[in-house]
């Protein structure tokens, strides 16, 4: 995987074909490429390889680790917390349609140039700018039993719904997901709006003149036209569900009550830094990596097709 090894001989070969200061060009290219390449290798690739290696080691606290083949993976699959963390992850994934559809509807409402749509767009993006850990602490107060959410529910006569949001196993996972959606929502609206901007207004207008209603325009015209954007947004939501929730869990629930809001990314952290079981933490990390890599591979593919040149 080391590019510099592969690229170096080829550089020389390619350089020879040209007249002039070939050597300076090679030096220049190497100098330009090296900083980024080193960053990527040292702080991304090397840690990944080391994570895999560490996942094969038996570690106990600060003792010297010993090689243990796949013992960590075996113990991981027998660990109910690990199984529950992935089950919780699957439950969060079930809410994906809401993450995809809700911003789409709002984006379409804005797209029809409702008065003040620019202001609404600006307001909807504010939550995404706030640090997730800050969002988590804010919502710990809002979702508190005596907090404003329950006060409002009681106020409108929905007292039975005013529960301890962060203390029930189901309600805690639900709250965590809802808070994440709250923070991520505006980005979706923005993504859809930039997709819709490429759609010709005439098509929409023609449909409206034919008497097509909001839902009809949404399903029959907008969705087919911006399918790639919807696909991209879906992938983005999936990857956030896997690797974006850490600060929210840290601030909101710490994985509890029990392990009902334990997601794999948080379990890696706890196993490594609180239970000091680095080997097993790395093994859980590798399990998470499989899913995260599968999902983000779609993003990388899109980026590559967009940015690659015709030559070479």
């Amino acid at each position: 995987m080391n590019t510099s090894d592969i690229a170096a001989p080829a550089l020389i070969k390619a350089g020879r074909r040209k007249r002039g200061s070939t050597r300076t060009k090679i030096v220049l290219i190497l100098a330009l490429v090296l900083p980024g390449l080193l960053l990527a290798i040292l702080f991304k690739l090397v840690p990944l390889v080391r994570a895999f290696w560490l996942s094969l080691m038996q570690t106990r606290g600060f003792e010297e680790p010993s090689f243990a083949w796949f013992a960590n993976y075996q113990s991981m699959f027998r660990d109910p917390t690990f199984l529950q963390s992935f089950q919780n992850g699957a439950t969060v994934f079930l809410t994906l349609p809401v993450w995809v559809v809700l911003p789409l509807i709002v984006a379409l409402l804005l797209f029809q140039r409702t008065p003040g749509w620019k202001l609404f767009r600006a307001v909807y993006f504010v939550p995404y700018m706030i640090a997730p850990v800050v969002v988590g602490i804010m919502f710990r107060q809002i979702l508190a039993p005596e907090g404003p959410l329950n006060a409002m529910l009681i106020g409108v006569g929905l007292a039975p719904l005013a529960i301890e949001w962060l203390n029930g196993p189901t309600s805690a996972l639900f709250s965590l997901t809802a808070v994440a959606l709250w923070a991520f929502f505006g980005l979706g609206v923005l993504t859809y709006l930039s997709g819709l901007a490429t759609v010709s207004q005439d098509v929409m207008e023609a449909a409206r003149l034919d008497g097509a209603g909001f839902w009809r325009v949404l399903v029959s015209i907008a969705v087919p036209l911006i399918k790639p954007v919807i696909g991209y947004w879906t992938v983005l939501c999936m990857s956030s569900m896997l690797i974006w929730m850490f600060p929210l869990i840290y601030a909101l629930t710490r994985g509890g009550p029990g392990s009902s809001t334990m997601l794999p990314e948080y379990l890696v952290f706890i196993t490594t830094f609180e239970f000091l079981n680095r080997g097993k933490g790395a093994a859980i990390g590798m399990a998470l990596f499989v899913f995260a890599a599968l999902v983000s591979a779609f993003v990388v593919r899109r980026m590559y097709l967009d940015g690659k040149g015709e030559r070479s």
Partner: protein
Amino acid sequence: MSTSAQSGAFHPRGRRGSPVARSLSRWLVTLVLVVVAAAALYPLMFTIINSVKSRTGYSQNPLGLPSGITFENYIDTFNRMNVLRLLLNTIITTGGGLLLSTVAALFIAYAVTKLRMPFGNFLFLFIISMLVIPSQVVIYPLYETILNLGMGGSYQGLILAYAAFGLPMSTYLLVAYFRAIPDELIEAARLDGAGDMRILFEVLLPVSTPAIAALSILNFVWMWNDLLLPLVIMGGSDKTTLMVGIALLSGQYDVSIPLISAGLIIALLPVLVVYLLFQRQILSGAISGAVR
């Protein structure tokens, strides 16, 4: 797919387009948008309001508007968690990570798109494919690597980590942008005797301000807001960032809600200011297509 009343706005001259229905649907749409906006802003308002309540004022009236405004919580926060130091740490690490990641990405993008380097596309793919490695997965080995380099608990360690994690997206944005810049521009500068560094910084850089702006905002926001990397790399050192400080402050048992609210406002104010200043660039959608 039946059409509801709110669909009226979509067919001004359609079958159900009576003036009453039309204005009714207009109002309904606006109402929906206002409710969503209120939901988006309420937590922020709630926190701001709480941050200016006194401790007793809050316990008497936790949810309503304050009877008087006090800034004692802000002063308390400054006393309890050395805000200025944390702010300085965050500025140094975010600024360093931002700068390093942008320069490294600029170099690679130039080599890949304008120098016709062999295996350029392969290098591009290699760099952006680093996106599949999230920090959570490699957090301990990353920390170990930084320790091995003798950079544990130091600014350099966190700056390099930020730069590495910001690199794939920065490289992608710049490569895609440089591809659209015609080579003639560079040839012309070369004929004028400009060297590569001058071409990169005096010809390409000025025309790619939109891309640089997009990636700087993007990187600024996530680096400033990040929790995991500084939490692990800085540990308990005094070089830790504002977000770690606020997370630790909120974990203390004797912290009142007005106090922590003031801390939250301090932590998110800089990002909010950046948002207000660069609203146009952020909302134009240049960034939305390219979020980590």
